[in-house]
């Protein structure tokens, strides 16, 4: 199974979970049907023309109905964002396999999960709405609730115990590490350049290679650059995790982010940055580190609020080997690779586990707050939205591309605060994809259906789709796709003793053949050829066996023959004494000690007939066949056979 991501956009349909009781949210009117029927008013609330579910937020899981997950042997994780559904899969589906991921992926993935669990568990909500999920009722609801898919499979957040158990099933791997799976295939993670420890995967046998490219970046940010060379010679390249905002240039967005931030703060307003606790935030902090002095923001406090803020900042500094070259060089000095260490040291950046506690006493305005969750449905960000939303001096800047900012803001409307949308998504855009594909040259490309056509909102932008030859094969949810290659070969080991016994002959210049008759041993999907056992000598003294037992136990396969018999040479050989040396005692044909003297050759339409008159034996020789017709004289037959074989090649 490739990746195990969680669709969190489902939470946008829910009301935010405020950290402190919010009179506004708790006083929202219940929603009623057009006919005035209000039986759903406990579950659904209306806010500025949108309807929200008033319940513990729920997540949309990966498809679990289509396949039996207990038959999945291995899950490969490409980056920490793509493992958020792991506890649902490893804990509740009968899955007993192994999950492979890099160390930073696991550590940061743990932080993301920890934060999520914490955000949801610290504001327990009594209500769990389920009535609206009824198919007949859902039909009656307004969009987007009406169109939400698979609502019956939506689940509440997992617990920390489930997270720990899920993570304990992960096997840590390093880039370019070759991992043998059951002797059948080898998987290898490669740097994908998108996030700390993010990987693309190669899945290969000795003769076939599939590359899984998911969430890759060619931009230079903090992670190790993408390893493109190792993706070459792929039979199939599965391409996913492209940028969600193909029209936005990340560099430009960072610039806009900085200038909007500075503008707001200078005017005495506060800036709210809803974000994940790891990833782009490191780059943003690095930009601000370079920017704040020149922009005169040295005295503005920066707050990073997350239950895992401290861990995230600390972890970022210890993954030297997973960082880009520049950052690695810093570690060699030795200096912390990220400048946020200095921001913390100089008290410009402060981090808190939550807005309760120390933060409330340290809190100074105007300020900049980085906090989660980017969906604006839970976490400390909900509080800041409520707190700052009423003033037009304040600004919320969206940098995470996973959620539509308008939908995220919907339950906070009407809003006086400025909203800036600066999505920073460093993953591949379509121009970079075509460059990559040109470089890597896979035989086939497989990708989600969305990438094979322009985005619905910009249907004229033919440049916003994957363009390759042959055209990419596309897949969509719950659809089975057969990959376009046929397996023809597998590796087998020839043991040295057997190899020594092989007699190669050159058939054509540069091509040699050797007939192999050997014993096949197969264990753990590894095949080995060993020399055949020596034929056991038949013991003459033994009790006479029944006729049926005389058939050889171990049938030695006879080779195929090829070539043709030159009649003249064949007859000459028949006439020669040396070709027919009978043991004198065993032969009726004492004459044959001197060869056959009565050979007659007749020409036929297709070849020749060689006649041994006295022996009443007839040999039909044609281009591609030889037929020996004789009396029941085994000795003679064997001798004739051996002579024929001398002229033929064996396969």
């Amino acid at each position, binding site marked *: 199974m490739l990746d195990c991501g969680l669709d969190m956009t489902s939470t946008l349909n829910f009301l935010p979970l405020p950290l402190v009781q919010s009179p506004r949210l708790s006083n929202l009117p219940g929603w009623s049907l057009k006919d005035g029927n209000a039986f759903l008013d406990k579950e659904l609330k209306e806010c500025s023309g949108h309807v929200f579910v008033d319940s513990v937020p729920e997540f949309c899981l990966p498809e679990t109905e289509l396949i039996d997950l207990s038959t999945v042997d291995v899950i490969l994780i490409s980056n920490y964002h793509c493992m958020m559904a792991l506890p649902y899969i490893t804990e509740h589906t009968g899955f007993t396999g192994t999950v492979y991921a890099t160390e930073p992926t696991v550590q940061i993935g743990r932080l993301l999960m920890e934060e999520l669990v914490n955000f949801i568990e610290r504001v327990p909500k009594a209500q769990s709405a389920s009535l609206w999920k009824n198919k007949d009722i859902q039909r009656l609801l307004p969009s987007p609730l009406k169109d939400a898919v698979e609502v019956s499979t939506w689940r509440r957040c997992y617990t920390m115990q489930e997270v720990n158990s899920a993570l304990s099933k992960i096997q840590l791997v390093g880039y370019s590490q070759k991992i043998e799976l059951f002797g059948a295939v080898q998987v290898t993670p490669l740097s994908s350049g998108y996030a700390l420890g993010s990987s693309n995967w190669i899945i290969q046998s000795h003769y076939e290679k599939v590359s899984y490219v998911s969430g890759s970046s060619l931009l230079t940010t903090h992670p190790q650059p993408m390893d493109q060379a190792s993706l070459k010679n792929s039979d199939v390249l599965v391409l996913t995790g492209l940028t969600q905002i193909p029209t936005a240039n990340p560099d430009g967005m960072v610039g806009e982010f900085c200038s909007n931030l500075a503008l707001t703060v200078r005017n005495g307003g506060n800036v709210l940055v809803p974000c994940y606790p790891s990833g782009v935030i490191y780059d943003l902090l690095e930009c601000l580190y370079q920017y704040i002095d020149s922009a005169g923001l040295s005295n503005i406090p920066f707050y990073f609020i997350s239950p895992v803020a401290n*861990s995230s900042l600390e972890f970022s500094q210890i993954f030297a080997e997973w960082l880009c070259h520049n950052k690695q060089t810093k570690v060699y000095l*030795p200096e912390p690779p990220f400048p946020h260490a200095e921001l913390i040291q100089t008290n410009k950046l402060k981090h808190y586990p939550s807005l309760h506690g120390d933060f409330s006493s340290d809190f100074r305005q105007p300020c900049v707050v980085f906090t989660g969750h980017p969906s604006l449905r839970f976490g400390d960000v909900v509080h800041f939205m409520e707190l700052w939303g009423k003033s037009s001096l304040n600004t919320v800047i969206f940098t995470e591309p996973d959620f539509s900012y308008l939908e995220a803001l919907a339950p906070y409307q009407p809003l006086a605060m400025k909203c800036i949308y600066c999505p920073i998504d460093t993953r591949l855009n379509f121009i970079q994809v075509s460059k990559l594909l040109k470089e890597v040259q896979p035989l086939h490309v497989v990708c989600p259906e969305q990438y094979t056509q322009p985005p619905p909102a910009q249907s004229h932008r033919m440049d916003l789709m994957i363009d390759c030859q042959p055209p990419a094969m596309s897949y969509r949810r719950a659809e089975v796709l057969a990959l376009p290659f046929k397996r023809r070969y597998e590796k087998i080991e*020839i043991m040295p003793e057997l190899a020594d016994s092989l007699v190669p002959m050159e058939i054509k210049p540069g091509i040699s053949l*050797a007939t192999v008759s050997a014993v096949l041993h197969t264990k753990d999907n590894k095949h080995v050829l060993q020399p055949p056992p020596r034929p056991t000598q038949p013991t003459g003294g033994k009790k006479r066996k029944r*006729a*049926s037992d005389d058939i050889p136990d171990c049938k030695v396969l006879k080779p195929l*023959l090829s070539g043709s018999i030159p009649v003249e040479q064949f007859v000459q050989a028949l006439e020669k004494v040396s070709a027919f040396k009978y043991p004198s005692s065993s032969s009726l044909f004492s004459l044959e000690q001197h060869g056959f003297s009565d050979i007659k050759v007749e020409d036929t339409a297709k070849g020749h007939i060689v006649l041994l008159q006295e022996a009443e034996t007839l040999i039909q020789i044609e281009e591609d066949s030889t*037929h020996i017709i004789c009396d029941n004289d085994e000795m003679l037959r064997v001798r004739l056979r051996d002579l024929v074989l001398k002229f033929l090649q064996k396969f």
Partner: protein
Amino acid sequence: MPEIRVTPLGAGQDVGRSCILVSIGGKNVMLDCGMHMGFNDDRRFPDFSYITRNGRLTDFLDCVIISHFHLDHCGALPYFSEMVGYDGPIYMTHPTQAICPILLEDYRKIAVDKKGEANFFTSQMIKDCMKKVVAVHLHQTVQVDDELEIKAYYAGHVLGAAMFQIKVGSESVVYTGDYNMTPDRHLGAAWIDKCRPNLLITESTYATTIRDSKRCRERDFLKKVHEAVERGGKVLIPVFALGRAQELCILLETFWERMNLKAPIYFSTGLTEKANHYYKLFITWTNQKIRKTFVQRNMFEFKHIKAFDRAFADNPGPMVVFATPGMLHAGQSLQIFRKWAGNEKNMVIMPGYCVQGTVGHKILSGQRKLEMEGRQVLEVKMQVEYMSFRVSCYMPANGETVTLPTSPSIPVGISLGLLKREMAQGLLPDAKKPRLLHGTLIMKDSNFRLVSSEQALKELGLAEHQLRFTCRVHLHDPRKEQETAVRVYSHLKSVLKEHCVQHLPDGSVTVESILIQAAAHSEDPGTKVLLVSWTYQDEELGSHLTSLLKKGLPQAAS
């Protein structure tokens, strides 16, 4: 016969100069490039003339692998690459790559600046040498070239120490360098796959038993320090910046914490402080416990150990100071030593080996009156202690080659059709019978493929030549041919239970693919002729059938 050859170029019977040449599958790999602290002459570095007398190092060697940053494993590297001349790749782990140049520079300063040695490598040479280094991750399979691959495993000896698997085709060597099998205060235990190498090259080992004795020495060390501090004395511990220093720092830090001691511990600023930074930044290379707790408490952020200022040396009362360099031959450690040597309450603990001629060596060999510069004589009244955590190793003599014959198997591609056909047969009830696989190996350049004979013929555009036999078997049977055929059929049917015997509508009998027809004899009506016909591929059965029929048919139970 293929073979693996191993030639030590460096390590003699004592510590130092680790350098081993391994030839495997036509590739030459140099393992470590150490120097010997005890010599000031040619013997200091490994003897590369073993290679260079036949040509350039770069032409001969496919790569160099450094196991860890101790100088007896990497100290000769700049000499080797810049002075003898090697431009190929040098592989080591990230922490080794970070720390190695610092130790080399340290070593160079002592050798050149303090001892005035000539013909030594320069700072620039160290930099140039490090440019040839390729850093490897743990467990990363590094493809040095198409055939040679190497893989690093955690060795737990010092920060960044690694064991290496060197593999060419199906032959492999594992080189452990120094490794520890049990986790210690700051590092984890060595770990490696079940990789079944042809050859294991292992060096001085800190096995479990030795670790126990190390525990004793640690206790001993703590006791000595504690006693000295209790009686109000000052303790000087001359160290080199990395490795031992961190281990002892952690040891003292935890001891201070446990015993609630108040005496200050200092480490000389500069290198050691820097070194602690390395441990902090490469925390993923330390043991599980440190890694797990580093967010709450970084083991290398010491509470009790503070940076040293030279003025502190004159402070009254007890203290412990770690100072560089380790052999008391110069710098801060020597300065402090001169200040404290006269007081019998004080103590100096030498945690490592000292080169002849250094103050460290002199006091360790019992000298108590030292002549300093300016004819000044320093009387050593302080306690002098030696503790070595090092275990020496034994190796074959330098230049002596060990040859290990190997017999690698040959990997070829087998067509899946052939393999599946054979494997399906192997699933028959009696699995004990050896299953024979028959096929044709096609060798074209270096491409080896095993295919079915039919496919081989087809690929080469050759036609199959059919070889068929027909034997006449005379039977005494006055009945009609058809009846004879029926008798033959029922006889064979009863005898050949394991074969498919059929009586066809045209009167002929088949056993598998073998055709039997009955015909009248041209002269003798009491005799019938059975024509038994088979192909070469079914020869066994055909010939068996004829001999069976020759014995005649049983009398029909009429």
